[in-house]
């Protein structure tokens, strides 16, 4: 058999030249660097190449659907982040490969996933690219790039190279992970609205003499319960102890916001809300886990990255509380009736409606509102 293989190939050597059916693998990269170092761009990656690198075709029927691509978008963004290194001067630029939701583009040889890029560089006048996509896998792959720096456009044909040594190319430092975590809580409206729903009634616990001790204690209990719970499941998911389909996790998160908001429409004991904070916090932790991106494989650095990300989430969360609580307390102390009607009840109603919309679109794939 082996000999046949050898000679079959032999014979092919004598054929007329192969006329190739399509072109080799390309990606299309467009970057614009602003004078202040702000970076914006777009990166089109062939679905066929992504299929080679990621298990996107979940049902293995070799027909890649939009649902499969969408569910893999986190992994695609993480892959892209690890395959492109941007430096300005001596410093690495930050790069967010999920600045907007993933979209699709038709190119001459098939469909491509379109990633929105955003980042920040130390300088606005120079940019170096390290291109590693498909390195060691497809030597014929090329990144076709247009890079605009200082108002001048440069075009480049990038061949994949090995990631620089000792660079820990694919993963962010723990400090970057802290920023990731903060970024995530700041833009993760569902987590913020959940927290807000739990905190809205807190301001009304203030006794008439204006001392805020009860409210503060209650807030502390809620935030602690939420933090403990989501840290727990975030850690378990990071170390692959639990793994749930992200679609159901996202839907459950929306449901938790809905329940918490609905709960505010009637009187409730603080204890119930602390229990909700813990119970639903477990689900929110799984949601954070899907945002964590590429992590080091070794347990030690992995733990460090996880701690960094979690710390970022907590800092972001405390900042949100610090912004909300004084304002709520001030309003509630002066106009308790207005606060109850417009702040607590109307506010919860609005939050509940938003959550309902999220729930529908996450379960049924409608596109109603962002988030």
């Amino acid at each position, binding site marked *: 058999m*082996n000999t*046949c*293989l*050898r*000679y*079959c*190939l*032999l*014979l*092919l*050597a*004598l*054929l*007329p*030249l*192969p*006329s*190739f*059916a*399509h*072109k*080799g*693998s*390309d990606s*299309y990269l*467009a970057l614009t660097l602003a004078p202040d170092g702000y970076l914006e761009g777009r990166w089109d990656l062939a*679905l*066929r190449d992504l*299929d*080679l690198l990621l298990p996107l*075709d979940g049902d293995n029927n070799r*027909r*890649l*659907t*939009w*649902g499969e*691509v*969408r569910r893999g978008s986190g992994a695609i963004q993480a892959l892209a982040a690890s395959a492109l290194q941007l430096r300005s001067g001596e410093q690495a630029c930050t790069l967010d490969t999920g600045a907007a*939701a993933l*979209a*699709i*583009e038709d*190119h*001459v*040889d098939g*469909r491509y996933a*379109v990633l929105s890029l955003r980042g920040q560089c130390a300088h606005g006048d120079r940019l170096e690219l390290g291109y590693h996509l*498909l*390195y*060691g*896998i*497809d*030597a*014929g*792959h090329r990144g*076709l790039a247009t890079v605009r720096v200082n108002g001048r456009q440069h*075009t*480049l*044909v990038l061949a994949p190279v090995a990631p620089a040594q000792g660079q820990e190319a694919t993963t962010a430092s723990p400090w970057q992970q802290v920023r990731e975590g903060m970024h995530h809580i700041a833009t993760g409206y569902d987590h913020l609205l959940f927290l807000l729903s739990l905190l809205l009634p807190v301001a009304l616990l203030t006794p008439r003499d204006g001392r805020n001790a009860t409210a503060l204690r209650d807030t502390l209990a809620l935030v602690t319960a939420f933090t403990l719970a989501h840290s727990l499941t975030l850690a378990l998911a990071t170390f692959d102890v639990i793994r749930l389909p992200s679609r159901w996790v996202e839907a459950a998160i929306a449901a938790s916001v809905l329940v918490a908001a609905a709960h505010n429409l009637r009187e409730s004991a603080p204890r119930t809300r602390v229990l909700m904070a813990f119970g639903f916090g477990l689900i929110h932790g799984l949601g954070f886990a899907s945002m964590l991106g590429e992590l080091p494989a070794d347990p030690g650095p992995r733990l460090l990255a996880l701690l960094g990300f979690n710390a970022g989430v907590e800092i972001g969360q405390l900042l949100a509380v610090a912004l909300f609580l004084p304002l709520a307390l001030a309003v509630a102390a002066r106009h308790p009736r207005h606060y109850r009607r417009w702040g607590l009840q109307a506010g919860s109603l609005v939050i509940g409606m938003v959550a309902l919309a999220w729930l529908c679109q996450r379960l049924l*794939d409608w596109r109603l509102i962002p988030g």
Partner: protein
Amino acid sequence: MTRRPLLLALLLPALASATPYLPSGDGEVLEVLPARRLVLQSLPVAASLPPARRETDIRNLLMLAQREGDPRYLGYAEAQLAQLPDSPARALLRARLRQSQHRFGEAQAELAEALRKLPGDPEALLLQASIHLVRGDYDRAHESCSRLSGLAILPLALACRAQVDGLRGQGETALRQLRQLSTLGDGLAPDQRTWLQLALGDLALRLGDDELAGAAYRSVHANSVDARAAYADWLLATGRPAAAVTLLRDFTRSDALLLRLALAEQRLGLPAATAHARELRQRFDALAARGDGTHLREAAVLALLLEKDAARALDLARRNWEQQREPADLLLYVRAARATGSQRDLALLRDWRRARHLQDRRLDREIATR
């Protein structure tokens, strides 16, 4: 090299400026992926695999590239080759890769290296012969064929020589030999049968035996992209464009086949020809942007026959001629030169042909040898 960034600057905005969109629903199929190949199951390939196993994988990839006409497999093979320890076998595989990429000079250098260590290696000799053939160096090709020895590869050695002889003035004898070899029939592997029939068809066509050529092509047309293209060419050459449309309708992903489909549609006066020509133009632009020079022959045909841009066609045919000199390349160059009335090119080609006694009825209609 210097030309590419400029070209890219012109092309890239067009390639990447369209607006992305969100598909209508989760169920929408975005891409039909090629079957998952065993050789690509775990990437990058582990360095711990024994070299012999990795060599087999690379062979498989090169074969897939040829059969499916898909250059991605060449890229995979090249990446795996880079991680293989140096050996004569590696030099041979590299030569095969460079040949597929139309980088013939590099391929010959690798072959010389391999043959220094493995004198008389049949695979290296056959490959060397085929590259000499592609470059129009028939005497050297014959020399390589003659060095093939051993009973096991006797049919191959005969076929090799017959193919060369068929190009340098001994067509009738060669045709007889190839026909005899093809009667080995069931004793041949499918790829071997395909190759033999294609060689036979090419020779028969040049000798003017359209019936024989048609039968040869028809019998293997479903086996590879190249075989289907060859059969389509025959249908077009013998005035059967409607049959060509039927043959090619479902194979528009391939540039080579889409080109033939557009030509057939043009003959039939079908409006689809224009759209397909435009699609081809976009694909060739995309190829040019990545610096891929393997499509020059097809691009010249597009310019000459579909876009009616004879000057551009001549330029492309000239550049293609620098790279490869098979009878089809010569025919194309001659037609482009005639369309522009370039006597200088025609004189050059006439001399080239006369020096080799190349038999080709199609060429006889275009240029006289004396």
